[in-house]
């Protein structure tokens, strides 16, 4: 039998309060982001007053999970339902799907049930990230 056994070093433990304190200089409402990126709102119309100040961009969901960024915006081209499940587990408030891609109805329904805002833009990943960064959104992790 192969076995890995060990105690994780103390320094990588999370400390209380740290995760919710990634406040940036220029938070934006999701409504403002919708307008800026010319997005269609797929889910969470009633939550567009939610403010975000950090974003993470990735198509790999394990990469999103690798660093904590609660209440951040996820920018992705991955429209699989796992993008919504990842956002739920990672406590991510909202997703912008790029390149005109849209998730299926099952994913949209799951997002509604979990209170996750879904936006879709025709812009590509690079332009989406650039516009948001120029507007003061910080990168997360």
């Amino acid at each position, binding site marked *: 039998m*192969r*076995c890995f*056994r060990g105690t*994780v070093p103390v320094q990588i*433990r*999370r400390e209380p309060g740290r995760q919710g304190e990634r406040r940036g200089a220029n938070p934006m409402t999701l409504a403002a982001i919708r307008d800026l990126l010319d997005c269609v709102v797929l889910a969470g119309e009633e939550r567009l007053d939610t403010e975000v100040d950090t974003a993470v961009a990735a198509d790999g*969901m*394990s990469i999103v*999970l690798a660093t904590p960024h609660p209440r951040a915006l996820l920018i*992705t081209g991955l429209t699989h339902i796992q993008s919504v499940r990842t956002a739920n587990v990672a406590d991510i408030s909202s997703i912008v799907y790029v390149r005109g891609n849209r998730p299926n109805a099952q994913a949209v329904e799951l997002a509604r049930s979990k209170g996750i805002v879904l936006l879709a833009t025709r812009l590509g990943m690079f332009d989406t990230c650039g516009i948001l960064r120029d507007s003061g959104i910080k990168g997360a992790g």
Partner: protein
Amino acid sequence: MAEELLRRSFEVRGGDFDKAGDTSGEVRAILIDLGIDPGVVLRAGVITFEAEMNVVMYAEKGTVTLILTEEEISIDVADKGPGIPDVDLAMQEGYSTASDEMREMGFGYGMGLPNIRKNSDVFTLETKIGRGTRISSLIRLDSYD
């Protein structure tokens, strides 16, 4: 050992990509309902989600067991599956044996086991080729006092 305040078990079916993530969603909901610190919920959710995805992607079936005491949260994931031939390699970030189908779901980037270890205060992995793999993670609650 501290008294168990809660114990829940969940069955996960290998290859059931439609349900992949349901168990971690339930674990997360239970911990939120109990008023557990959001940072702990986040870590427990990531551990369970990654372990659950590993069962769905690689194993025939698995059982996720959540145990809560006043001192810690234990997440144990035992699967019936192929086992891991090279544990040291599997623990390296970026190493993956994932299929294209797995990558299309956003997984298979070689971050699963490292993410589980990173979010655990104590992490144990035991594997036997042709039999299965068992991952045990502990999150200590006293670090949040």
